[in-house]
């Protein structure tokens, strides 16, 4: 089913937002406004944008540390995300997380993790919770090709498949784990094939084509929502910059990178929109200007924000009885329209899901 023109417009805008935001973040890093690690998503926009467009608002999403794009696509406030990158008090995590730990619970974006593959079991747990509460909800978890070599990947896919957890695992295969070609360190570099070890559905998709990603996720989400189990979706993509801002990327040739840039997902969608006469070039250009302004405003907001107070050193360490969760947009922007996850109380909840029949399997030789 082809996406509507509204959805197409939104996907184009979103990819532009991710691209212009990351370009600004790269510049800010260059003048030391952002420090530490900063992993840019430039080139991979179609994966997060196409996938998000195919999901529902209240589906859960997690990823690793290349997370700025995912946080933005879910609807995170660009100013507050940039402020988090700058380590200011107006950031989503009060400046305590930084680039690798963008978290926006209001928009069901659960991070943002620094340990490669650390988010993989978490996603299974969130899918487990959804199934436990009989929710109509899918969890989507992104990670890189190299993360699929972590033990956590294998342990988790086994459980997710066995228990038919409603989780879609998206491998953003950009062919490199930091500086190492994935084929050099993987006996089976075609990641989607690893799903077969768990009798799990494994698919591939062209991750540079936002429409193909969209279709693949529509299909995978339908499968999950029908209770058929998890899906491993391998999206072939490419990052146009290095692994992080500190990476000189000598392990890839200039020719290779320039070749891949001809596959730019934003230009590809733009060409499609123009060819199908859905939107004029002028309109698309104007949107780019608007998005650039949003990103400039984000930089200004971040740069004008204070560092966290030293009083914050000891906060967010322990939940005391009666403590509420922090709602970032309320705290920072005084927003009054923040919706927050609400879970049924333990008295109201009815758990109707049984993993296995209650009677144990009959012993061999029993009558």
């Amino acid at each position, binding site marked *: 089913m082809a996406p509507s023109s509204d959805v197409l417009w939104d996907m184009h805008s979103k990819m532009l937002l991710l691209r212009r935001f990351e370009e600004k973040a790269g510049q800010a890093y260059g003048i030391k406004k952002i420090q530490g690690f900063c992993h840019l998503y430039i080139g991979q926009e179609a994966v997060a944008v196409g996938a998000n467009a195919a999901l529902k608002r209240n589906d*859960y999403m997690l990823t690793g540390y290349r997370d700025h794009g995912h946080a933005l696509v879910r609807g995170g406030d660009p100013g507050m995300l940039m402020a988090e990158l700058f380590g200011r008090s107006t*950031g*989503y*995590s*009060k400046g*305590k*997380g930084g680039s690798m*730990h963008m*978290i*926006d*619970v209001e928009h069901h974006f*659960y*991070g*943002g*993790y*620094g*340990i490669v593959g*650390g988010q*993989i*079991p*978490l*996603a*299974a*747990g*969130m899918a*487990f*919770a*959804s199934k*436990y509460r009989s929710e109509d909800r899918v969890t989507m978890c992104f990670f890189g090709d190299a993360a699929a070599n972590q*033990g*956590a990947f294998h*342990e*988790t896919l*086994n*459980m997710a498949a*066995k228990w038919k957890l409603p989780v879609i695992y998206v491998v953003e295969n950009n062919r490199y784990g930091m500086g190492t070609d994935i084929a050099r360190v993987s006996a089976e570099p075609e990641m989607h094939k690893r799903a077969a070890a768990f009798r799990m559905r494994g698919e591939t998709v062209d991750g540079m084509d936002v429409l193909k990603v969209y279709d693949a996720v529509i299909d995978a989400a339908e499968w999950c929502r029908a209770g058929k189990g998890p899906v491993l979706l391998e999206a072939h993509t490419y990052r146009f910059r290095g692994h992080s801002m500190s990476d000189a990327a000598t392990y890839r040739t200039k020719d290779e990178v320039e070749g891949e840039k001809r596959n730019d997902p934003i230009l590809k969608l733009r060409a499609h929109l123009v060819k199908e006469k859905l939107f004029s070039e002028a309109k698309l250009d104007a949107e780019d200007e608007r998005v650039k302004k949003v990103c400039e405003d984000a930089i200004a907001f971040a740069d004008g924000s204070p560092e966290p107070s030293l009083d914050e050193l000891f*906060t*967010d*360490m*322990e*939940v005391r*009885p009666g*403590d509420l*969760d*922090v709602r*970032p947009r309320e705290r920072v922007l005084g927003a009054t329209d923040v919706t927050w*996850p609400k*879970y049924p*109380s*333990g*008295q109201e*909840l*009815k*758990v109707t*899901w*049984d*993993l296995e*029949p*209650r009677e*144990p399997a009959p012993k061999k030789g029993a009558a």
Partner: protein
Amino acid sequence: MASLSFREALNQALAEEMERDANVFLMGEEVARYNGAYKVSAGLLDKFGSARVVDAPISELGFAGLGVGAAMVGLRPVIEMMTWNFAILAMDQIVNNAAKIRHMSGGQLRCPIVVRGPNGAGGRLSSQHSQALEAHYVHIPGLKVVAPSTPADAKGLLKSAIRDDNPVMMFEGELLYGTTGEVPDGEHLVPIGSADIKRPGSDVTLITWSRMLSAVVLPAAEALANEGIDAEVVDLRTLKPLDEATVLASVHKTHRAVIIEEGWPWASVGASVSDLISREAFDSLDAPVARVNGLDINMAYAANLERATLPSVERVVAAAKEVLYR
């Protein structure tokens, strides 16, 4: 009051909390159909069904992480580790996710997970299966650590741990499951962060937790009493946050302290408690703080070597006399 075994007390705590709050579920190896490797979860599968009592594959990292994720979205998992030796495999999820998610998210998320299981020597199991590892977790900001020594404390602390919205690590003594004790009837909760005077006294403070209490420290206190030495026994119960007030009040009273723990001596819980006492009660001390630990070696299988490795009544009595200059 009823006389219950340590495992029965834990079983009751689990059943009561699972009854009270349907968000609570138990996951671990052998917890469901096998009724628990140490029978702590006996009968729970029949009562609550296989979504709430889940047999996990042998994937400690995987199912610990699954528990953390479920806790982040409002469930209250109890993750059973068959022993804390095996939980080392899960340390990344506990240390890097459970302990840090609230802070990394700037207070948006919480992780109300309980990770529990047996700890310490199990009786001639050799080095990989005999470790007392509470020091690893006490070291990590963002975790709470409890170590009950009696059935009543086990029940009360597990209930409190399940109701606590922070990640709580519960260290049970592997050889404690069969020990018995009086457990109050009705709703019995022991607050996290409170130590207990298991034997009031005036001459010397003996500080301990978990299996060492009943196996070695209380018998040592009786032996000391026969020699006219009146020992006060402080059971920490919670290792983090530590009940500093109770510990220091006792030392201010007796002027002498011995810390007895099963674990190795270097960078242990006892090392920090000793530091606390030396700094905060220096003027009350009439002798340096003494410590009795498992020897700083790997545990052997041979019965005599294991006996010699673990703290003994004799070593505790000797340490108490040492600080009394007797």
